[in-house]
């Protein structure tokens, strides 16, 4: 007896492509652990087949077949470390590793004993960004998506586990197929992701802030379509573009600090914004255990916005922080680190 399809049997496998937009057939060992709400992929079309209104009438003509199928969706995960030393390039960060590559990051692993770490830095404008193929199992079906480029968002709305979200776009050359969820092999499933509690927050000299929440958005353009008439698929994939990283964090209001306007327990964000104070170092460290912690580092940034927020009787400020590069052809604005 067959039972109704349901949403819980969901899973995703992801692999780095060697040739852009060519399915590299991710294996069950290439699984990445996703969290609810699970991906619900809606196939979209570069040309939806519409032919317009009938001449001399108000009706619609029969449609042509649609062409150029693609997916523009989003996937959510938890960020965690390996729980053991990153001793070679084969020891990847669990789950988010390949999606960070798809989000335009170059991966560098340091394997020196005791200092092992993965650093993800933006791909240079002259470099070739990585793309991934992902197979999405869900609701009793398999959807194969290739040529995926992504953006990155990291959100901590409370003291729980921050959510890593990757909005993405890719092409879908193969039709959905009835497929049961296979037995997927996840990387270190026993390692529990760190929570946002105990996050080390640093903005210049300001380290003692009471931090309510943060939301980071890489702001990467990833879904400029490359429509291709010279292809039966009608779609050659996507073209990623520039990034516009921004972090919004909500902190309790402090006394307004005098020049240089940022001290350990006080800050004057109005002056930091007004003076466009540059050279502020920013970092968030989530997790306190080596090999199960991650860091978001802005090598240099500025406060570009201050907004009062009320939460009951609590006085809060939403600070908008933007990292910047220090010259053309420079990519030193941000680092995502697992160490």
């Amino acid at each position, binding site marked *: 007896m067959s039972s109704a399809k349901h949403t819980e049997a969901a899973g995703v496998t992801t692999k780095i492509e060697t040739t852009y937009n060519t399915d590299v057939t991710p294996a069950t060992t290439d699984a990445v652990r996703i969290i609810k709400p699970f991906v619900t992929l809606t196939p979209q079309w570069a040309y939806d087949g519409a032919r317009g209104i009938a001449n001399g009438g108000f009706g619609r003509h029969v449609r042509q077949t649609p062409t150029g199928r693609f997916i523009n969706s989003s996937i959510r995960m938890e960020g965690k470390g390996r729980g053991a030393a990153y001793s070679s*390039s084969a020891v990847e960060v669990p789950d988010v590793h390949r999606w960070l590559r798809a989000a335009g990051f170059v991966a*560098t692993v340091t394997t020196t004993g*005791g200092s092992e770490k993965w650093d993800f830095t933006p791909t240079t404008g002259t470099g070739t960004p990585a793309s991934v193929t992902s197979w999405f199992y869900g609701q009793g079906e398999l959807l194969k998506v290739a040529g995926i480029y992504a953006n990155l968002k990291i959100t901590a709305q409370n003291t729980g586990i921050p959510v890593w979200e990757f909005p993405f776009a890719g092409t879908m050359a193969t039709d959905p197929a009835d497929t049961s969820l296979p037995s997927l092999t996840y990387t270190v499933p026993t390692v529990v992701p760190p929570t946002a509690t105990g996050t080390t927050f640093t903005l210049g000299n300001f380290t003692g802030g009471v931090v309510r929440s943060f939301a980071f958005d890489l702001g990467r353009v990833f879904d400029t379509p490359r429509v291709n008439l010279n292809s039966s698929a009608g779609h050659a994939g996507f073209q990623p573009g520039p990034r516009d990283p921004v972090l919004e964090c909500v902190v309790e209001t402090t006394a307004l600090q005098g020049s240089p306007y940022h001290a350990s327990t006080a800050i004057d964000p109005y002056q930091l914004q007004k003076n466009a104070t540059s050279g502020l170092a920013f970092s968030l460290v989530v997790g306190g255990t080596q090999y199960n912690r991650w860091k978001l580092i802005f090598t240099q940034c500025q406060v570009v916005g201050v907004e009062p927020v009320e939460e009951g009787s609590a006085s809060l400020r939403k600070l908008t922080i933007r990292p910047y590069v220090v010259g053309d052809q420079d990519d030193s604005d941000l680092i995502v680190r697992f160490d």
Partner: protein
Amino acid sequence: MSGVTVVWRGVAISIPPEIESETAEVTEAYELASFAKALGWTAEEVLAERAREAEAVAAHRAAMASVENPKDVPPLAFPDLTPRATRGGDQ
């Protein structure tokens, strides 16, 4: 596609995507051979140095765990490696 960079003791090598997409054993063998080539060492010498390093890390962790204040234990640091070809004298 861009590959992955591996840095060990100040020496950087690149893993091309076609190797990256192979199994862990293949990429690790490629890493080993690349470091040996970059340093002018044999693969056995690289393995021996890595084993020595792993022992030092384990000893350091044991020392940290055995004292009341881990800050009393001097930090572990390994010198960057100089390729043999540029060191001279011991080719």
